[in-house]
Every structure is written in structure tokens, then in C-alpha cells.
């Protein structure tokens, strides 16, 4: 069953400009998403996940800019689309949810209006009609008493409610692709699960593909068919979700999984202490020579220090970017 992928990203490069200098914040990132599929992007903060997502819909702001590679959406190259064309895609066919439900909504507008804007913008509805549709949208994201809620301002809602509103906005126009940038990070644990279920259910029902970005491996494992692990502006490993959790190939992936608090059976077996990966993600301007992970890697060798590893495609699909992949 080889259908055309919904989104193809090839050799994406994002530059960060500091003064006259340019640094590649994201380099050589490639992945594909099929229709209805959920791809996870995982990694520590600062490794370039969010800006990768932003670059897909042309929302990078200086000093960042998309400087190389190709983004094909539904067979069409969109990285160089004129602003107008891009805008028509945004929200309509590719929607995005952000991390901070507190600030992502305009504090001075009612949530009803902020949802209604989508219908006015993309469906050419009148405001009155759009407001009615907004109530329906709120119903679909399981907000109680939607008729009342549409008149509320964001500060009157809880974090979970706001994120539901964000989802309602994002899915208002039945997009083909949803970019979800850490949609639950800022929420309480109990609310997290509800929101994730909501996203999962709604996207499944509409056949919407999802690019799920998170630093939370557990969440990714739950949601995604495939997972890409990012480190320092690169995807270091990309495979099907079950495989990657059972047998991580890249030392970084390994480290991430090892640092997960374990629940259930395995925890009882005795690995009580969490393992951490020593050190932090280097800043963009100071990416090291050779493999970018080598300063933190337990398996680093001379080669790692000198030579940048290339992608090694694995027989069962996916790839890993490591000289010493297991």
C-alpha cells in the first residue's frame, strides 16, 4: 500500500542569524507523514523541534529563516510559496496548536470570536453564521455549556478549556495536517490525558495527520505510529514507535528512554534509579565538530569526534544517524 505521502520534508535547513553570522539551527532534517498518520518528534528543549514545525507553515520570524531543503505538501512544494498562497494553506489545511494555552489566545477577544474567525477567514462565512459554527466547534471539543462559553474571555477559562478552544480553532476547517507543539506540557497531568484523547479521537475521525512534538517520550509512545528523535537540529533516529522503544539504536534515544520513570511490571523488577544523560544540549552557535552528540555520549570514539555521521537506513524501515548504532 504505497500511497503518496501527505507531507515530505527533505534536507530542511533553518538558519539563525546573529549579526552577520549564520548558524544552522536545524540541518538536514527529512521526514514524511502519510495521510491520517501520526508522527512524533521528540527531544530535549532547544533541539529544534518547534522551529521545524513553525518552518513548515512559514511562521519563522527573524532572526530565524528557512534557508534550504524542500517541503512538499500534498505533492506541492510549499517552502517558497508566495505569502498569500501560504496563508490559504495555514489554518485551513495545515493547523497548529501551541504549547502555552495561557497566552496563545488573545486576551481581549471572546473565545467564540476567536473560533469564528476561522470560518470567516477560510470558509467565507458571515460573522453571525461563524459564531453559530463556533458553538458547534466547541461542542465537538467537548466543552460543556458551549453557548455560554463562546461569550467568555480566555482568562475566564481553565488551562484545559483553553487548550480545547485551541483544538477547536485548529480543527475548525478540517485540516489535513495538525502540528501539535507540546500541546499538553503546560497542563495538569489529569487534564493532559483528556486533551491527548481528544486530539487522537478527533484526528482519527477526520483522517487528519498529526505531527506531534514533545519532550515527553511516554506521550509520544501513546500517540504516534512513528517517532523521530531530534538532537541539536538533526533527526538522529527515526523509526516505528514500537521498535524504537523496544530497541533504540542511537545512544541519545537510549538515554532518553533510560531516563523515563518506569511504571508497572518492569519497575518492580528493580531498576529504581532514573538514568540521566549528562550535560545539556549545546547552543546553536556552539554545535560541536563531528557527531553533535559526542560530548555527551557514553560510546563516543575518535571517529565520532572527527566525522559527522550520515543516516544509516535500517532494513525494517527508518534510519539512525550514528557511527556506532547497535
Amino acid at each position, binding site marked *: 500500500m504505497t500511497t503518496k505521502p501527505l507531507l515530505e520534508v527533505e534536507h530542511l535547513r533553518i538558519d539563525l542569524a546573529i549579526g552577520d553570522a549564520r548558524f544552522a539551527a536545524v540541518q538536514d532534517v527529512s521526514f514524511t507523514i502519510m495521510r491520517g498518520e501520526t508522527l512524533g518528534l521528540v527531544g530535549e528543549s532547544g533541539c529544534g523541534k518547534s522551529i521545524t514545525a513553525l518552518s513548515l*507553515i512559514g*511562521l519563522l*520570524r527573524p532572526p530565524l529563516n528557512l534557508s534550504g531543503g524542500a517541503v512538499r505538501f500534498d505533492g506541492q512544494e510549499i517552502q517558497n510559496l508566495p505569502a*498569500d498562497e501560504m*496563508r*490559504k*494553506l*495555514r*489554518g*485551513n489545511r495545515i*493547523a*497548529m496548536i*501551541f504549547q*502555552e494555552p495561557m*497566552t*496563545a*489566545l*488573545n*486576551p*481581549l*477577544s471572546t473565545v467564540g470570536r476567536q473560533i469564528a*474567525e*476561522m470560518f470567516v*477567514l*477560510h470558509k467565507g462565512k458571515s460573522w453571525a453564521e461563524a459564531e453559530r459554527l463556533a458553538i458547534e466547534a466547541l461542542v465537538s471539543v467537548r466543552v460543556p455549556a458551549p453557548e455560554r462559553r463562546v461569550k467568555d*474571555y480566555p*482568562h*475566564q477559562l481553565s488551562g484545559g478549556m483553553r487548550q480545547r478552544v*485551541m483544538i477547536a*480553532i485548529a480543527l475548525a476547517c478540517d485540516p489535513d495536517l495538525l502540528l501539535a507543539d507540546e500541546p499538553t506540557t503546560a497542563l495538569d497531568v489529569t487534564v493532559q490525558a483528556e486533551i491527548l484523547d481528544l486530539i487522537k479521537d478527533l484526528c482519527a475521525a477526520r483522517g487528519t495527520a498529526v505531527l506531534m512534538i514533545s519532550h515527553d517520550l511516554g506521550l509520544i509512545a501513546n500517540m504516534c505510529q512513528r517517532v523521530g528523535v531530534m538532537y541539536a537540529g538533526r533527526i538522529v533516529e527515526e523509526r516505528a514507535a514500537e521498535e524504537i522503544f523496544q530497541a533504540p539504536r542511537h545512544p541519545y534515544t537510549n538515554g532518553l528512554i533510560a531516563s523515563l520513570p518506569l511504571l508497572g511490571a518492569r519497575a518492580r523488577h528493580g531498576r529504581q534509579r532514573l538514568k540521566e544523560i549528562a550535560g545539556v544540549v549545546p547552543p546553536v552557535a556552539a554545535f560541536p565538530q563531528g557527531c553533535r552528540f559526542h560530548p555527551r555520549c557514553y560510546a563516543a570514539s575518535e571517529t565520532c569526534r572527527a566525522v559527522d555521521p550520515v543516516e544509516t537506513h535500517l532494513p525494517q524501515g527508518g534510519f539512525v544517524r550514528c557511527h556506532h548504532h547497535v
Partner: protein
Amino acid sequence: MLSYLVRRILQTVPIILAVAFLVFVMFSVIPGTFAASLSDDGRAIVDVTVVERMNKEFGLNDPLYVRFGKYVGQLAQFDLGMSFRTRQPVTKVLADRMWPTLQLSFAAMLFAIAIGVPLGFIAAMRSGSFVDTISMVVAVSGLSLPKFWLGLLLMYLFALVLGWLPSFGYGDGSLRYLILPSIALGVAPMALLARTTRAAVLDIMNADFVRTARAKGMSESRVVRWHLTRNALVLILTTVGLQFGTVIGQAVVVEKLFSWPGIGSLLVDSVTLRDIPVVQGAILAIVLFFLFVNTLVDVLCAVIDPRIKYT
């Protein structure tokens, strides 16, 4: 809403009382008397009996607590006393001068808003460009000139050299006479507003909800219209409110320079001549005006910004 308004108005009461007290104390210890001012031009030889009689008539010989009691008693009846100089109720003297000051300060603010806000907007939209640099240099320069000098230069340029506008005075109260003084008065708040607007717009442009708006597929102009303007407005309004205080204070200078018959020039004259009841009344009037404008601004902000609670 109404209770919010009432609460805001009640909050100003202690301020007004404190100003009334402060003003009384300050101008009770001021050296020089009105009677002495009568001869300060060296023209008239003021005789001793007249001076004494005047001081007696104005109650200047009474002990301080008696004068204060009288002052408070009058204030309680909204009476500001009699002007030494005009021998008319201070309220009437002020009423005669209030309108020109209002005209001038509103015109100056209007100028400041009409030029400053768009300038700040443009600068923020083209942040980092040549336009941005130029408009901010203009803004900072506008803040760096003594007002009377600027006024004098304007007067020379537009009245004498170009002959476009009358140089001074109130005339028939028409717009022609209002333009130069309100520009002289409005340049500084204009500069401040341009800077505030630019900063506010820049802040908001980087706000998450603007990113959301873009992600929704909105064009930049829609983003500005639907999401940026109202949010920037709250910040701009607050600045405008506070700037009114400065403007009405600086009106003293501009009114004196342009012979504008407002409260400001009256205040300077009355300080010089030690017409104390008028000085006290004028300062109270200015403070009241400032509080009124700022209460208005607060209410407007509350209308625009639902986060401000009415209760």
C-alpha cells in the same frame, strides 16, 4: 460597571484632599505677599495703610490654623475663596480660563496621538529599517528640546518666515491660533507615544496569540486589525492618560510663550503676584482634570480589557 466607576471616583477623593492640604501648606510659607507685589514694578509707591488693610482683608495676619480652618470650611462648600487680585471668586476666575486650557491640551494630545501612534506603528512594523531609525531619532529629538525654545523656533518659522499662521494669542478661538501652541505642547507626548506605541506593538507582535493568529492563516493586515490594535490600545491609552498630566503641566510654559489665556498662564502670573487663592484653585483644578482624564482612561481600559475586574 457602575460600581467600578464609583469606586474609581471614590479613590480620587483622598488624593484631592491631600493636594488641597499640601497646596495650602506650601503657599502659606511662601515668601512675599500680594500687597508687596503691587509695587514690584517700581511704578507705584504703595502706602503703608493700604498694604496693612489688604493683608487684613485677605486674612493674611490671622494665625495659620485660623486660615486653615477657613480654607477647609470654604472647600467643604466647594468655595475656593476670593482672588486677591481680581477680587472675584476664584471659581469664576478659573472658569474664565478653563476652556482655553482644555482646548490647548486636548489639541496637543490629539496632535500627539495622530502623529505619534501611527509613527510608532510604522516603526514597529518596519522594525530595524531605515524608517524605524528615522522615526525614533525624531521621537527622541522631540523629547530633548526645551519647550519654550521649540515654541519660539516654531513661531519664527511658521509665523514670521513662512507667514502661514498667527504667531500668538487666542484670537477668535479658531483653529489657526491653536495650531502652533498645540504643536509646541504636543511634540513631547508625541515622541513618547511614538516610542510607547512602537514598543507595545513590538511586544504584541511577538506575543503568542499573534502567532496563533498567523497560524490561523490571517494576513498581516488582518492580524493588525483584529488582534494587534486593541491590545496595543490599552497600553497606548494608559500612556495617554499619564501624559495628560505632563501636558497640562507644560501648558504653563506654552501658554506663557504664546499668550494663551489658559489656567497655566494664570497660574504663573498668580504665583508671581502671590495671588494665593488663585494659585491654590488653579493647582486643584489641574489635579482634578488630571484625575478626571485618568479615571476616564481607566474606565475605557476596563471596557476594552475584560481582564480588568469591575468589582
